[in-house]
């Protein structure tokens, strides 16, 4: 077994070790189907957000507005469905379109005016946050239609709430596009070297814009799922998913397809980190320890990956 094969599956092995460790420490409690089914469903918004981030990250752009887009989408549903009495389906569609629009606005400034993505998305994140506070009067809106709640957390398949299957679906689509289509290759070229990509005739601006719009739409889907899980639209907490989602995206880039942002790595990272949090919480360990667990896991994984890969180019270096 080569070192690179070890690297490829190291995160899965670490996840397995965490599961076995907590399984031994918490007999009959941690290693239960209920625990994992609950975890798979409740982490779906975080996993979708991580998937949203890896698309522009692959093309070399940061989307710091994705967390705010989660909040915006759930609040659009809250306002339209609860406050204005819209049926849930049009409200969801407007929320998804809103996410895509955020991506388009980001792309407009990033691609057309050549402003760094970090600056533009930082600005739009702040702008959206203000917009959401205005829309919601900074208050949670409860009472979202049961139709969405049923479609996200009410119904189950193989004992796991539907929320998880939206993650799988987006994961499969991204995996297929990134791995098996010319578009995926173009995206990778743009991320690794914009000038080279431009010189070989790739429409760099179009690819980057497409990535940002996709990111906005997937982040909005995360917001829709979040609203369905809570049965409410919360004006702030989507923002707090952003940094953990970035952590999962980077952690995921050390596994499965090491050196590249990839959907399975990102999804596994989210569930690896949440397994740690769940196990620690079950042991009654204070919550601050979970932040240390998350930070240490990311730092360790990226460092080990860097050691294995030496000077080889990566998406995140």
């Amino acid at each position: 077994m080569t070192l690179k094969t070890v690297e490829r599956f190291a995160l899965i092995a670490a996840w397995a070790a965490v599961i076995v460790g907590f399984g031994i420490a918490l007999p009959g409690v941690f290693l239960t189907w209920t625990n994992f089914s609950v975890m798979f469903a409740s982490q779906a918004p975080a996993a979708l957000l991580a998937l949203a981030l890896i698309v522009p990250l692959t093309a070399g752009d940061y989307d710091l507005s994705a967390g705010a887009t989660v909040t915006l989408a759930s609040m659009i549903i809250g306002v339209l469905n609860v406050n204005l009495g819209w049926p849930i389906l049009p409200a969801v569609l407007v929320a998804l379109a809103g996410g895509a629009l955020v991506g388009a606005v980001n792309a407009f400034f990033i691609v057309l005016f050549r402003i760094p993505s970090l600056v533009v998305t930082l600005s739009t994140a702040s702008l959206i946050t203000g917009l959401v506070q205005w829309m919601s009067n900074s208050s949670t809106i409860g009472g979202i239609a049961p139709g969405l709640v049923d479609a996200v957390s009410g119904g189950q398949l193989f004992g796991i709430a539907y929320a998880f299957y939206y993650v799988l679906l987006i994961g499969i689509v991204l995996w297929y596009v990134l791995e098996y289509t010319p578009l995926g290759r173009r995206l990778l070229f743009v991320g690794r070297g914009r000038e080279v990509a431009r010189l070989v005739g790739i429409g760099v601006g179009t690819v980057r814009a497409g990535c940002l719009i996709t990111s906005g739409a997937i982040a909005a889907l995360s917001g829709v799922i979040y609203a369905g899980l809570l049965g409410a639209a919360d004006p702030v907490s989507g923002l707090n998913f952003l940094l953990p989602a970035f952590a999962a995206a980077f952690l995921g880039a050390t596994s499965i397809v090491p050196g590249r942002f990839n959907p399975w790595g990102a999804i596994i990272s989210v569930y690896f980190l949440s397994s740690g949090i769940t196990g620690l919480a079950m042991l009654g360990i204070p919550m601050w320890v979970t932040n240390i667990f998350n930070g240490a896991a990311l730092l360790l994984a990226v460092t080990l990956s860097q050691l294995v890969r030496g000077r080889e180019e990566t998406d995140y270096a």
Partner: protein
Amino acid sequence: MRGVIQTAALATVLTWGGASWAATAEEGVARAKAQVEAHRGSPKFVAPGPAFDIKACAAGKKMLSIPNNSTNPFLKGIIDRMIRAKDDTGLEVVEWQNQGQPSQWVQGMEFAAKNKFTAINLISGIDPKTIEPQIKAANAAGIKTMVSHFYDPSQPVNPLVSSSVAIGFNAVGKLLADWTIAKTSGKANIVIIKSDEVPPTAPLVKGITDELAANCPDCKIVQQINVGVTEWGTKIQPSVQAALLANPTVNYVIPIYDSMSQFVVPAVALTGKAATVKIATFNGTPFVIDYVQQGKVEMDIGESIDWIARATVDAHLRDMCGLAVPKELNVPFYIFDASNAKEAGTPATFDKGYGQDYVEGFRKIWKTAP
């Protein structure tokens, strides 16, 4: 024979001990039920002090009100109502809008000093010790700094502030504990969700633990989960899920501030425990009272923000005019559960459900009643 006597004596002791234990437990449940019942009646106005001519007192005075964060609808609502109450009180109230950053509070203090305000009101969440140099400067400029809805009566008040009207967070904790004792007939197994960084948390949680110790020998706090305010959205749900799965005997979750409950409700639902695990909480935020109406939250202890606004203006004007200042806001806590949550409106609003008794009550002691 001796053995028989010893056994009989032991049995007698055990029986008496058991009987007394049972009696203690029953008495505790009875006390808890009485406390709960006391907070279910229509809230009654209690005068915070002797009557005074509020408009004469307020003439020419203005107060800058600095909330912990202007995006908090609870605090913004209180200040808006203090401003609107000017017709009754005569006091001009100005809000210092901010986003919860201490540097903005500092700016507000300096604004008050430069613009000749009579008093500064730090409302619900600004710890005076974070802006002591500015309070000293305000004192030197003859501007009194007052604190409202922040300290529990058991907590020492910062000596730099002119006065404080406290709110009984400890009493809220006791009432939450009494609710779980009464509802489980003394068999509550509780998970508490708290945020230790917020100053009212300590007296509130102490109220829960003290009341359980006093009234419920068989009740247990299974786990206390401390989650920072900025992490509510990401940490409460997974930690509650973990706690419920690890401890199947849990029958109550107490998120001590009710905005936490939006993350507790899905945790209870996803773990399939909605039938056995109930949620009791505090603040009376409208969307949580909606949850009570929908059966997702069992009870929410509320307080009227219009009542708080009037009680705050009353207390601060007494201070500005050299009268005796009440130590507490005296705004009653009122329990919303399935039986009365609709009184708060559908959807619920901040002021409905508490009656109008206090409006006339204040007008009488302010000598503004027609």
